């Protein structure tokens, strides 16, 4: 770890909430830096962020903020220290952009005081200017585009004038230009105001390019922390995302080139088609008969089953049952199996089956792996 003092310290956090769990999460967030929490879906990133924001209380473990246990802060004190942008899914009432951002001032005001002071208005103006949404001042929030809405929400968090801002997936649902714009603005706020920023991100590229520090999680545990170049490695991608890839860095951006998995080529399979001619109107009975025939799924070499029927079984005079097998031997092994014999003995072929024909087809399966990406890239260069 670096020598920078930490803004947030997490000590052995354990939490269980439905399918989300956190185990022994110990980490710290460096002060005045930009930190991203990364990891696959369901790894507990958002849960961790909510625990830091005191929206959830961890079953075990301690959170301290600027050296003080989170529990010591009153709600209002905490709201003057940490602001958070939750995932944008709450329905907001009809508000102007300015009214929304003004809510950010409420932790600084008393129970009855809603009237904004000159200072409040200055801060609101500053927040809007920082997010460059001043021109939307008087517009209704819900008439803005997704990207502008997100900027307005961030401005509301800014108006809280806290030293730490948490953001839960601030760029999800935005197009790439808005993503980069929002990330750039956050970086600027971080550098110019010295505000500690912690965010949950899905995009590794942006996490690496804009953040100083990464916390990588998988299955509720921290798997690695450090600066982006140290964290994002082939080993990390294999361990956390279970993909094989080469990683290199171009300026601050990681270039992640997946290595295609080798697919088996030239596999063969046998398609067994059993076509029964039946007297019209007896389709149902035949299907019922097939239902009773011994289990196939458990057989070695069995690949799949298809039954071809029309929607109206009464009109049908032909039923095809198609099974797929690894080899002819596997199919024959089934016809000799206990399960098959059990279902066929003591049963005469019913008279609605006029004829029955079984055909075998051998099929070669050839899968074409994608051409190696390296070659494509080389060509373009």
């Amino acid at each position, binding site marked *: 770890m670096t020598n920078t003092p930490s803004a947030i310290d997490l000590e052995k956090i354990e939490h269980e909430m439905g399918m989300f769990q956190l185990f022994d999460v110990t980490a710290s967030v460096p002060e005045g830096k930009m930190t991203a929490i990364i990891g696959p879906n369901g790894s507990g990133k958002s849960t961790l962020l909510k625990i830091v924001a005191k929206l959830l209380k961890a079953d075990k473990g301690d959170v301290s903020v600027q050296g003080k246990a989170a529990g010591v802060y009153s*709600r209002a004190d905490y709201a003057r220290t940490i602001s958070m942008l939750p995932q944008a899914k709450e329905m907001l*009432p009809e508000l102007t952009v300015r009214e929304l951002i003004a809510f950010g001032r409420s932790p600084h005001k008393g*129970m009855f005081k809603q009237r904004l002071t000159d200072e409040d208005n200055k801060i609101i103006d500053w927040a809007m200017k920082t997010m460059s949404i001043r021109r939307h001042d008087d517009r209704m929030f819900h008439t803005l585009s997704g990207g502008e809405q997100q900027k307005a929400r961030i401005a509301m968090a800014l108006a809280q004038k806290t030293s730490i801002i948490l953001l839960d997936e601030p760029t999800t649902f935005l197009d790439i230009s808005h993503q980069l714009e929002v990330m750039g603005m956050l970086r600027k706020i971080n550098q110019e105001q010295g505000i500690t920023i912690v965010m949950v991100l899905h995009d590794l590229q942006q996490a690496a390019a804009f953040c100083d520090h990464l916390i990588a999680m998988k299955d509720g545990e921290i798997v690695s922390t450090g600066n982006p170049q140290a964290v994002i490695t082939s080993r990390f991608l294999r361990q956390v995302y279970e993909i094989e890839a080469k990683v290199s860095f171009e300026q601050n951006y990681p270039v992640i080139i997946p290595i295609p998995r080798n697919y088996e080529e030239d596999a063969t399979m046998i398609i067994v088609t059993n076509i029964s001619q039946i007297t019209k109107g007896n389709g149902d009975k035949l299907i019922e008969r097939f239902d009773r025939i011994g289990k196939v799924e458990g057989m070695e070499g069995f690949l799949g089953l298809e039954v071809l029927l029309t929607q109206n079984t009464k009109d049908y005079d032909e039923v095809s049952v198609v099974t797929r097998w690894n080899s002819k031997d596997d199919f024959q092994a089934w016809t000799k199996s206990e399960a098959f014999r059990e279902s066929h003995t003591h049963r005469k072929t019913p008279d609605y089956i006029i004829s029955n024909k079984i055909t075998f087809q051998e099929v070669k399966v050839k899968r074409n792996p994608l051409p190696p990406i390296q070659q494509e890239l080389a060509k373009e260069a």
Partner: protein
Amino acid sequence: MSRQIRARRRTIALITAPVLLLLSVFYGLSFGSVPISLREIWMIITTDSQSAHDTIIMNLRLPRVLVGLLTGACLAAAGAILQGVMRNPLADPGIIGVSAGGGLAAVITMVLLPQLSYLLPAAAFIGAFATSIVIYFISWDKGTSPVKIVLAGVAVNALLGAVMNGIMVVYSDRIQAVLPWLSGGLNGRSWHHLSFMAPYALVGLGLTIAAIKPANLLLLGDDSAKLLGQKVELQRLLLILLSSLLAGAAVSAAGLIGFVGLVVPHAVRLIIGEDYRFLLPVSILGGAALVVFADTIARTWFDPIELPVGILLACVGAPFFLYLLRKRSNWR
């Protein structure tokens, strides 16, 4: 709704609501079996004249109008606050059982302890208060959710209704006094009733000022309100208590009047939006005007029968509520 339209509507609503209330009061005072002109009313109220109509205005119509006014104001305020804190448009003192709690306490007082009838408002308030506490704790499980509160309220409402009916069956000889009260009426409300309910109602209405900020922040959602430093659970509890105080005051004076708390804040919200700085005062004035108007209509239009105002309000309110529900799909 654009900002300009909203601003215009707010201004219009803030001017119209008091005017409507004033009109309703004059309507209530001057109409009845004996029509009395506005000038005469003015003379009676401002001077010490001893005209023949003096008794009618001062002893019959004025207290009745004032009780109706406070009842409507309390019910609308209680409804507006409950809808906000429970984030549920169906929340209404009548629907989630707070009124029923107050009603049961009042029925018990009237039927079993008639000698204590002067404690009626206190009993209704305690009943409403106790019910809201019960509902709150039934629905509590590591925090509470609006849906759980409404479901618990519906169940408690059903139970309280059953108990109330049980009492009325057992003491069927004593329910003559209770029946008109149950359907919600203002017949024969006097200064005596007003002096009982007014302290509760006025304290409750005054406290609604404190409800504005938390109610507005709760519109952003529980998480956002917490992140803005609000003690959401505590606020929700206090606001529910406030609305049971308001509902208790209304129930004690006017019985079980439904739909005012549901329809008035809804209609106001449709017109001027959800900001409680405007929603609450306009709803309070609108609720007061509605009940006074409706009561005057209920006692004059069906002469010689005097209809309990609760019945009239339900007849108008229920279809209006259905209309709102249908419209809601393209509303939000």
